[in-house]
């Protein structure tokens, strides 16, 4: 029997509706789970996404793109196949895609997390027959510490460094993580200076109605001659560090730096394991909530995760995709 969702060279494909989900090659119709660049690629003829994701897509890929907007939990049909988007809790606008056809229900998770971040709609797992899940942090060594604890640790460390006369450079992904960290810092009366790439994303989200917190442009810091907390995307960190004068400390906020080796390899002073992905217990809990008997495991630790699920009675197998977990956090 043909499967409801299959893997084509272009990406995950729903043959009955002739539509792709997060395709990595240009296609006619693409449903986009969220606006991170490995999921939302340029060049598709028509996009379909949550309104917040749509706003970011326009900022990122150009105002000319054709995007159809769908709110969470509003069903719509494409060639008789019933679709709906549901919160994934990953970043603002991120969605799981529920696909229902002839009594069979599949869900594509996109990226997701189970803890609240203060800016994204919390994940709402859907019952389904087949669940296509991410596994960015699909090893049991990934267990996030409680979010308030991490927030408190980050803020008190940053405040301490500022007082000691150091700039604090935080390496964060520009969409989602940066806004989440901005809000955390605001709670501790810190207004971060943000790299233009971050500012662009924050403004796009703000226009779409997401409360992104208070921030200043990085250029303002240079005029003021005081120390500040600076949010930069990882790729721009080197350049920013070269330009800053005076003592600097660096940290990253990412699930990866919960492993010492990663922190040390990147020569960071501190790492805060604040992640926008589900940890191992979060992945397992979500899979349980879907009540799916069949699970396809994509980007991340798909091999071990699928094997573990199989040993626990699920029909689970890895599904190779072109999403890049290492560069998406």
């Amino acid at each position, binding site marked *: 029997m043909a499967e409801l969702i299959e893997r084509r060279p272009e990406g995950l494909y729903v043959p009955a509706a002739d539509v792709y989900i997060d395709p990595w090659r240009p296609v006619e119709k693409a449903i986009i789970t969220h606006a991170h660049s490995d999921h939302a690629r340029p060049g598709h003829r028509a996009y379909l996404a949550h309104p917040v994701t749509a706003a970011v897509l326009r900022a990122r890929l150009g105002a000319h793109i054709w995007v159809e907007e769908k709110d969470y939990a509003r069903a719509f049909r494409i060639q008789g196949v019933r679709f709906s988007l549901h919160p994934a809790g990953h970043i603002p606008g991120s969605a799981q895609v529920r696909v229902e056809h002839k009594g069979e229900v599949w869900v594509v998770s996109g990226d997701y997390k189970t803890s609240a971040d203060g800016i994204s709609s919390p994940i709402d797992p859907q019952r389904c027959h087949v669940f296509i899940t991410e596994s960015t942090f699909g090893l*049991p060594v990934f267990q996030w510490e409680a979010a308030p604890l991490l927030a408190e640790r980050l803020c008190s460390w940053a405040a301490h460094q500022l007082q000691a006369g150091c700039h604090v450079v935080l390496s964060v992904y520009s969409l989602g993580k940066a806004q989440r960290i901005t809000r955390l810092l605001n709670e501790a009366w810190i207004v971060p200076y943000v790299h233009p790439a971050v500012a662009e994303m924050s403004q796009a989200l703000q226009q779409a109605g997401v409360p992104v917190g208070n921030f200043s442009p990085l250029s303002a810091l240079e005029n003021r001659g005081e120390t500040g907390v600076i949010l930069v995307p990882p790729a721009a960190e080197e350049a920013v560090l070269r330009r800053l004068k005076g003592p600097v400390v660096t940290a990253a906020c990412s699930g990866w730096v919960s*492993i010492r080796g990663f922190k*040390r390899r990147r020569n960071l002073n501190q790492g805060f394991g604040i992640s926008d992905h589900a940890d191992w217990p979060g992945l397992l809990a979500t899979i349980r909530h879907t009540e799916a008997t069949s699970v396809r495991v994509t980007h991340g630790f798909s091999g071990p995760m699928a094997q573990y699920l199989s040993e626990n009675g699920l029909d689970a197998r890895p599904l190779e995709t072109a999403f890049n977990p290492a560069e998406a956090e």
Partner: protein
Amino acid sequence: MPALWKLHSILPRPNRRTMEKFAALISQLDGTTSTQEKLDLLVRYFQSVPDRDALCALALLSGWRPRRCLNSSELRSLAAKEASLPLWLVEEAYHFTGDLAETLALLIPFPGNATPSALPTSLTEVLTTLQNLVSNPERARDFILYVWRGTRPSERFVFNKLLTGGFRIGVAQRMALQAFALSRGLDPDFVARRLGGDWNPLDMDSAFSEQDQEEADLHRPFPFCLAHPLELDDVGSLSVDTFFFEYKWDGIRGQLLRVQGRCDLWSRGGEWLNSAFPEIVEAVADLPSDGVLDGEILIWREGQIQSFQELQKRIGRKKPGPDIRRRYPAIFLAFDLLSVEGQDLRTWPLAERRRMLEEFLPARHPVLRASNLLQPASWEEALDLREKAKNYGAEGLMIKNKEAPYHGGRKRGVWWKWKVAPLTVDAVLLYAQSGHGRRAGLCTDFTFGLWHEGQLVPFAKAYSGLTDEEMEEVNRFIRHNTLEKFGPVRRVKPELVFELAFEGIHRSSRHKSGVAVRFPRILRWRHDKKAQEADGLEHLKNLALQRQPTGNSESHPQKSAGDNF
């Protein structure tokens, strides 16, 4: 006897939670890359804890390994059971993080916020408890589970480090020692000498009280003078007469002490070797006067120095019998004299010490010999001597400044080692495996192949030699070009070419290629070469024929004590 750790939960002693201080120290050291800051952290830590804890911490940071009460596979099983995970998944996670202590710390479910820390209150107590549980695995398991369930990952990690033995966390031994000395107002050299040998912080009676310090001190080695790899630019402009030249032998570096009639043989790694090499100790006992010699322990047979492999055959025996002693006779090849009749000579110029050494050693002694001084007339001749060193089974040359005093540690401009230039080939990357420690999560262990009859045959593994940037780039290639995965190993598209260097080649039936190379390492990435342009196995075998020295052609097993220069 009631279990020690149960008492702690009843009787908390909040002011004495020095174990937590140690765990915090480790986190803080992790958080800085500045040497000065590390030193400050260490000094503050040492000042804030009692002597015994400070000693334990110093021992751990200096590479002391507590005896293990569970071995690594027992620990893995215990953690797997506690976390309700299959063992293979624990292994998978370990391959990924590259650090067993950390893996196990992260695997166990985290305790709730309300749970108080279950760490015993002092580092000494933890170590003592673990030591008492060495032969009681059942109780050890209970104790470990108790601690795991009640600690946060960062504390758990430090506790696990005590369980697994190794404590390499980016603090140089010398720095830990210096910080300890500062915290106690002692002279670092004095502490180094006191702790130069093999010591267990739990067994020491009084750590640094004045009286027994001097007594115990007398019979321990001085801090060893270490050599830098030579760059001709360092010395090429100076006359060769400025230096002594000696062959660099591959043995065990050691100090041989005769002090107030008592004799001790210490390796550089801090091992006490009296029972392993009794003939050397007997020889020095027969001398008429006291002295401290620095030199190399070597096997001497048929009129020449034998390879390290021959020495290896004796090292394994703690107490060699007469047969082994006859087959592998040991000598002490002395190249320095550090004290004589209680007088410290270390501040004297090397030339003076050498003169004293020759007076001190009896002429033509079969066991105690002085190193040969080579006398090249120019740097060209020195280069020639180095090339020929291999013919005698030496690794290269040692070059020492005649005027320099004896410095403990690796000080520039005093001693150099000048090894024979390595052999090289261009080889193709075939397999990659994820690495450990600082490069966890990255593939850092590579297997390389050479062409043979139209196929690439794996011939060597190499680990080091790439910059962090190159490593990232190679890993990006690996991620996108993995053909197959078996566990942590990936077979990659054979495209990338690297120049590999190694020290020697020998035939091996255990290797697919039929040859094995010594100390292979990556010299550079040959972006300019395609896989088709890599070298063939024949080329490697030809190199072997051209360069193979006599007498030292065997493979080089792992050294036990790391006692070479």
